[in-house]
């Protein structure tokens, strides 16, 4: 076991990068047992590890399978550490994103990666899943008081469903209340502009950068 806090954070981070779910769990329990601040352990351990995994993904050393296993390790640690967050850390108002795959499409790996990377960056993410009707994005964004609606599709056939979400926001006079961002294989910046979305990202790490921009957080 690591000697001091710094070593433990490093080990947690390494467990995430090393896709070692058991080790991440074990180290998180260790952190709790030693009374280490849960927020710091998450930030400097798990989140740091997921950030490194994201960099390996960008440099094409890691691919989707590796990134998913890294996130499994991150979530295993989060499950243990989150209940120990101080009340003010747990209840902190964070920038909130409603994310989902639009109606007519069930390809959700890309959306899942974006959710993972957003959560790893400290954002509050509500994942609606896949094959989601336009109205549900709008209703959820309203009821959850979200900041961003993030839409994904891999299919050219379902791109129009993205425009439908924007239109519904417009007709309900809600357009100014939420930022709408898009991602997925057939989507381009030009398409995002055409349907009056607020942004487009071509990868999960870039989606995080985009949301940070919208949230006014330094990248």
């Amino acid at each position: 076991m690591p000697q001091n806090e710094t070593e433990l954070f490093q080990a947690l981070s390494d467990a995430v990068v090393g896709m070692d779910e058991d080790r991440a769990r074990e180290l998180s329990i260790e952190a709790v047992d030693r009374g280490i601040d849960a927020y710091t352990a998450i930030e400097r351990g798990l989140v740091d590890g997921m950030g490194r995994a994201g960099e390996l993904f960008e440099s094409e050393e890691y691919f989707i399978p590796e990134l998913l296993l890294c996130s499994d390790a991150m979530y295993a640690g989060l499950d243990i550490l989150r209940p120990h967050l101080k009340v003010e850390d747990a209840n902190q108002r964070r920038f909130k994103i409603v994310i989902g795959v639009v109606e007519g499409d069930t390809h959700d790996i890309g959306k899942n990666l974006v959710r993972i990377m957003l959560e790893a960056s400290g954002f509050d993410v509500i994942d609606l899943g896949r094959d989601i009707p336009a109205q549900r994005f709008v209703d959820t964004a309203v009821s959850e008081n979200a900041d961003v609606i993030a839409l994904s599709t891999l299919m050219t056939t379902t791109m129009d469903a993205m425009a439908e979400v924007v239109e519904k926001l417009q007709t309900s006079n809600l357009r100014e209340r939420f930022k709408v961002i898009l991602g997925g294989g057939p989507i381009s910046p030009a398409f995002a502009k055409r349907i009056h979305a607020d942004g487009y990202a071509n990868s999960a790490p870039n989606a995080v950068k985009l949301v940070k921009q919208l949230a006014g957080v330094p990248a």
Partner: protein
Amino acid sequence: MSRDCMTPVQRFAAYGRGEAIDRLPCVPIVGNTAARIVGAKVADFRGNGKLIADAQVAAYRRFGYDVIRIFTDLYTQAEAMGARVHYPDDETAYLAAPAIESIEQIASLHPVDPHKDGNLPAHLEAMTRAVDAVGSEAVVTGALTGPFTTASFLIGTETLVRLMLKNPPAVHQLCEVALQGALTYAKAILDTGCTPSLTDAMCSTTVISPRQFREFGQPYLARLVEYIHSHNRSVTLHICGKTRAIWEQMCDTGADCLSIDNAADLAEAKAMVGHRARLMGNVSPSEIMLQGTPQQIRQAVRECVRKTHDNPKGFIVASGCSLPVETPFENIDAMLDAVREIGWPVHIEEEVEAAWRA
């Protein structure tokens, strides 16, 4: 624009022998867009081989492209093995649920009976009818999904990619079942007189690593290609998304033609593997073919031809992937017209280019 002087069969034969042709072969990859030609809904294709054939043949006659591909979606084999597919009224089908949920159920999977299971009999009927109708003049292919991609539909993509790292033997077991199904279906396709045309979407390095492709994709594709070659047919292999890092391996499967997605660059492909395989591609199906103007399509075609017309193993002007259902007819016409305008030997008027660049 004047129509062509050669049939697709004549054109491919002459091109393969290095003889003069009237224009480069051109394949806008028309899938469910064919429904629009005959005024049908996409869901009407389900289980209706006659309608699929009528629509595909009508689309071929309407546009005059070189390869008819009997295709509705990538799920036909997985569906025949138990995956649940959802058919929206008038859009391309999508996977509702994989065939199995855990590795314990792999043993319950069985290879397909293409004459009985799912929509395979309808697709075979469509192939037979299309070959009967236009097989003497046009190349008619039958879509065949690669083993790794079918495996992903059998157990779910996320589960499969996690298993690649956690339990590789289970993935091999799944790919083997999928391969056996694909081999059986390939035989049935060949029996109709069609050539199987391979798509292995999930092998893209947008999803898995080149090393993972080498272990889980390539060997199964190689066995499928070997089988098709044993029937003296050449094989086209399409992998979606990014593929640059696996072009050599795609050639190692034995594939004769690589279909390159618009996420990759044809000039790079030519430099790397142009001496090993014919290339086809790669006008963007969404940005250009669906959303672009005929003038933008003409530009995109000329760009592809400029980069790749001198590919040692030949070049087919194509879309980077299947066209979206609602692709405007005039855009498909524009693709063919651009290829006809360039003609043969390939000639691209530089002055005109300079004008639109300026």
